[in-house]
């Protein structure tokens, strides 16, 4: 599925300084029953966001109108648990394009990159700085530059570089995906498969 190209994102951010945010919280299993990729954002963080009677939980950050933006700032080990890509879909569908954390679970990171969300992994110290900047001013903006591979707190100018391999960087900046790449090397795959003992 096509996604928006990612170059430079300047946005306010939503703080969620909780560790081990697992994919069952991001999108509970009972909302995985669709056969199309539609409407997952409505159930993003469903059980943290809504009471059993579907009224919003006032103390949850997504229900606090002070916070908004296309960047989600999470705690350590974000996206742990299930491989459900629905978690990344829900985050994308809700409107986030970038998730910032000091540590990501592997499968979540892969899934995000595959659908056009940029996972930005930074040091615990810089994560703290970002959270404090948002706490001081909920309208504080961050700038995530994929070409330059750095994230900046615009108010103070403080920044930190982040890692991404050049293949994925190229894909995200151009809206390409792995399926395009793999289709271009079908002959090599066929030759390889012919040698398999399985």
């Amino acid at each position, binding site marked *: 599925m096509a996604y928006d190209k990612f170059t430079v994102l300047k946005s306010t951010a939503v703080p969620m300084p909780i560790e081990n945010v697992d994919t069952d919280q991001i999108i509970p*299993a009972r909302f995985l*029953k669709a056969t199309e990729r539609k409407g997952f954002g409505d159930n993003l963080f469903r059980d943290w966001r809504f009471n059993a009677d579907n009224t919003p939980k006032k103390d949850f950050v997504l229900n606090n109108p002070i916070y908004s933006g296309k960047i989600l700032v999470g705690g350590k080990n974000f996206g*742990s648990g299930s*491989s459900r890509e629905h978690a990344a879909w829900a985050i994308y569908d809700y409107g986030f394009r970038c998730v910032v954390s000091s540590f990501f679970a*592997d499968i979540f990171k892969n*899934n995000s990159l595959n659908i056009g969300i940029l996972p930005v992994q930074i040091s615990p110290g810089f994560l703290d700085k970002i959270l404090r900047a948002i706490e001081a001013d909920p309208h504080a903006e961050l700038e995530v530059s994929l070409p330059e591979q750095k994230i900046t707190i615009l108010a103070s100018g403080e920044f930190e570089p982040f890692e991404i391999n050049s293949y994925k960087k190229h894909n995200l900046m151009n809206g390409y995906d792995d399926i395009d790449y793999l289709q271009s090397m079908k002959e090599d795959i066929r030759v390889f498969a012919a040698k398999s003992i*399985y």
Partner: protein
Amino acid sequence: MSNTPATLFDKVWDSHVVRKIADGPDVLFIDRHFIHEVTSPVAFLGLESRKLKVMFPEKTFATADHNTPTINQHLPVQDPLSANQLKALEVNAAKYGISHWGLGNPKNGIVHVVGPENGITLPGMTIVCGDSHTSTHGAFGAIAFGIGTSEVEMVLSSQCIMQPKPKKMRISVDGVLGKGITPKDVVLFIISRLTAAGATGYFVEFAGEVFGNMSMEGRMTVCNMSIEMGARGGMIAPDETTFNYIKGREKAPAGAAWDKALAYWKTLKTEEGAVFDKEYRFAAADIEPMITYGTNPGMGIGITKNIPLADAAGGSKSTYEKSLDYMGFHENEAMLGKKVDYVFIGSCTNGRIEDFRAFASIVKNRKKAEGVTAWIVPGSHIVEQQIKEEGILDILTAAGFQLRQPGCSACLAMNDDKIPAGKYAVSTSNRNFEGRQGPGARTMLASPLVAAAAAVTGVVTDPRTLLVD
């Protein structure tokens, strides 16, 4: 060939790399692809919109498990959304020529149970599935891991995925396990030491005496939960136990093909002197029956211990407090004696015959505790059949338990098997996340023996006190 001693992981990974991309991932050929109803429909839609075919339909196997009811499977599925997903799997499998074991098929069951029991899972393979517990298949010396739906589409259309090669970790457990200590306790112990993120970025090899002595069912339980410490997967070198398990299974090689495969499989081990990026070593004697008290699988302790103090638990204090608050537990409380409302035995972690034998060993000649609801769910129809043939069903029935039909069930509560809000469950599954077993459900992960002890006493109980010599 270089002279550097290779690890098991290197041998299998490197032999599947179709292309290496500079400063990018490896293009990895996939030998076996399992699909189920939840994470595959959007991948098939992707194929359609791109007008792509399934490149090697004979390398993909479909089974329905996540959404299936565990009673009255002969009747139409009540939940229209679940029914729709199950139908989509059936239609997609038929359209693309993929083998499909749907509801009612005698081979049906949880994908990570039916793969091995039918000889589809073999040593030295690369195996993927849109499910994080695909790591289970690593018990056979395969590289097996969970993938997202975009990657399911990749495998369907090209039999490859693109992955950076993970780092390597070895976890050795030496010695002999004490009585009443099961593979589930071993893996919960390891995760409690490493934390839920302790192996992120790594592929783990489990090594040492304890795993060498373990049955294939036990090895599957261990590798299954590799993901719960963040690992991409876990694997155990194949040995005689592995080969004996595989031989004669329906889809396993036979005759000359068996001899050829076996000769290759015997080379699949880590060489002396091979280097890992990280190593851990534990002693079997330090492991007791384990139970979790929090909301991630790293929050586990020996069943006789008290809940750790926030300061001693490591990590963020507010996250720790949020977790205990959800569970309705407090620091320094004992786990023994805590009330249990529900017991669930099953799942891809503990839904195999050995798990039901263990459960039966404790409930035999005892009665289900009043006030406990127990869901006993075999991992497949083949396991269900074994339970009946071995007389385990008679033991369960005499003790007041009922056997349900196979599926993922209360492990992730996609079907009707949901633990009600606020209730406590001792569960042999793999995740104690908030709401995992139903909104507001409170999960304590444990072994089949601990589950059985809770089921007959109604409280958290050390199973060693109930074991008969």
